[in-house]
């Protein structure tokens, strides 16, 4: 029996999450060595990350071992795969949300709320619509995923560059546009499905789109690679993200190539959303929840810190949530709607709080 957090090792992301956690905690300490005022805060962050890491290890152990009763060689590989998928999904959602919130300068917009994952579903559907379902099924899943992701990254970047515009549209207008765009994308998707094959609508939907109880593990490898690339790019760009929190004008004044940076970051966000949507389908409110918890717990403006915290929280929430749902409540299929429920209530609370501030 491996140590609790070692089982996650086969997929790259979990070990990366741990390493970055350590780095993030250490780095501010080095930078600020000559300003004593920062030390208590750094100790607090180190403790926080240690705590989150431990929590993640426990959650993973629980997820892997709960209720196995003897059939280890059968259960363990399958659960490892699921665990890896949850880690990839959680990290992708957390990172994409934090980055997107910095781009849009607020804490309530998320890629999901702005219809990114509905757009992924639409792109996939449109692809099947154009090619025909028989031809689409003949394409290897990997190639299909690659084409989807590329289309989605291009489409989302163009679309949201236009919607976000020069930043003069009000925040709530943007949110409403996003919510409605999400509805439009998903209505369009189901419209195409009905037109294609009115009888087998549901079978097709199920075949094409994953959910938490039907995680698409065939794509796990490529998803992990994409996620890794996205994370590396994000951490490299982290200082620029820090500058972006000051707003567009100050960022330009400080020498940031604003237009280009935003485009690059939108591409990364779109790619990460594609990763998580391909594996488990759309989840609206997870990103919102974990990003805001991340800000609250770290109270930091440094993206190295907030990104890592949000990712850890997301993975813990998913793994723990899935374990509890499977074993305590016995309805695995509703992790998505459970998250939407909790997240939706939280979203309303957040909206009201922001509106009062």
């Amino acid at each position: 029996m491996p140590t609790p957090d070692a089982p996650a090792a086969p997929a790259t992301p979990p070990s990366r999450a741990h390493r970055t956690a350590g780095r993030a905690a250490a780095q501010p300490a080095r930078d600020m060595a000559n300003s004593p005022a920062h030390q208590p805060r750094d100790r607090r962050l180190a403790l926080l990350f240690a705590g989150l890491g431990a929590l993640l290890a426990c959650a993973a152990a629980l997820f892997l071992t709960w209720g196995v009763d003897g059939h280890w060689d059968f259960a363990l590989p399958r659960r490892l795969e699921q665990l890896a998928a949850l880690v990839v999904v959680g990290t992708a959602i957390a990172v994409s949300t934090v980055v997107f919130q910095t781009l849009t300068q607020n804490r309530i917009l998320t890629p999901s709320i702005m219809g990114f994952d509905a757009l992924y579903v639409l792109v996939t559907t449109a692809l099947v619509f154009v090619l025909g379902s028989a031809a689409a099924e003949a394409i290897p899943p990997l190639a299909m995923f690659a084409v989807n992701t590329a289309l989605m990254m291009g489409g989302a970047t163009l679309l949201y560059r236009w919607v976000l515009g020069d930043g003069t549209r009000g925040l709530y207008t943007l949110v409403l546009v996003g919510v409605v765009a999400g509805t439009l994308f998903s209505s369009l998707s189901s419209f195409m499905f009905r037109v294609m094959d009115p009888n087998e609508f549901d079978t097709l939907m199920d075949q094409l789109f994953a959910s938490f109880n039907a995680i698409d593990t065939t794509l796990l490898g490529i998803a992990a690679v994409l996620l890794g690339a996205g994370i590396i790019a994000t951490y490299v760009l982290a200082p620029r993200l820090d500058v972006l929190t000051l707003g567009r004008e100050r960022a330009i004044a400080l020498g940031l190539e604003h237009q280009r940076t935003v485009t690059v970051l939108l591409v990364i966000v779109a790619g990460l959303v594609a990763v998580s949507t391909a594996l488990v389908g759309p989840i609206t409110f997870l990103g919102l929840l974990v990003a805001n918890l991340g800000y609250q717990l770290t109270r930091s403006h440094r993206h190295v810190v907030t990104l890592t915290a949000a990712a850890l929280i997301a993975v813990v929430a998913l793994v723990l949530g899935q374990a509890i749902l499977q074993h305590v409540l016995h309805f695995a299929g509703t992790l998505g709607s459970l998250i939407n429920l909790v997240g939706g209530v939280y979203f309303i609370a957040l909206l009201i709080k922001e509106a009062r501030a």
Partner: protein
Amino acid sequence: MIALVLTVTSLFVGVAEIDLGSLLTDPAAREVFLISRFPRTAAVILAGSAMAIAGLIMQHLTRNRFVAPTTAGTIDAAGLGLLTATILFAGASVMSKILLAMVFALAGTALFLVLIQRIQFKDVIFVPLVGLVLGGVLRAISEFFAYRANLTQTLEVWMNGDFSGVIQGRYETLWFAGGVALLAYLFANRLTAAGMGRDFATNIGVNYRLALAGGLTIAALVTAVVIVTVGAIPFLGLIVPNVVTMMMGDNLRRALPTTALAGAAMVLACDILGRWLIFPYEIAVGTIVGVLGSAIFLVILMRKGNRYAHA
């Protein structure tokens, strides 16, 4: 005019070939006409106009163009009510389902009003946003229980309006919705006054609370009836009143008939489109209205976007 042409078209579009001649001579054709085609057309007209009126009343009473059954949680609350009735009282009659759905729709809408009243700051965009998310939360609760009761598919059907199941004997409750919508016309002046705000209404001797409660009850009742009978028609109550008041101004009494007609026309058009596109199959009208409605709404938002540019 358009509504009339569409009505006639709707009557004569369908799987079974029917034309005016066969209607007079062929008893089988007449039967199809009476049992399926006419009820369907009537249902479409009733549901379309009633939902549009519900939307008009809601946006009027909340003084916000973007509030409608879709954006105030009303539809999702009614769905939750219907689900509750189905789960708790297995053999519930249509009437009691409507009643429970209405109670939930009212409660959901009231919750929405309480929520937005807790915010001093009322951004015109912000209010429907809260409603949409509230709807999402209610939807998630429904999904949660539907999953347990194995009713996920049923819930999907309710949430996606479809007139293909409408035949004689299975749509008549919609006349009720139509009647309630007519009631709105009688009280139009009072609703207009309430829409001008509490102070204005009180000043000219209208009981504000009563008018508000009455208006919302009408909207909730209409929504409940339509959902129970044919399923939700998203965005209809949002788009139609917006387009109509854009052209005709805000006097409720004047806008009501046009809104009703335009609502009927839009649903008729979508229903015919749904029947014709993949003939002999059908696309649910909810899907088509969903596509068109959200697209139109987006256009309205993006066009007006800059006028609300204060975050």
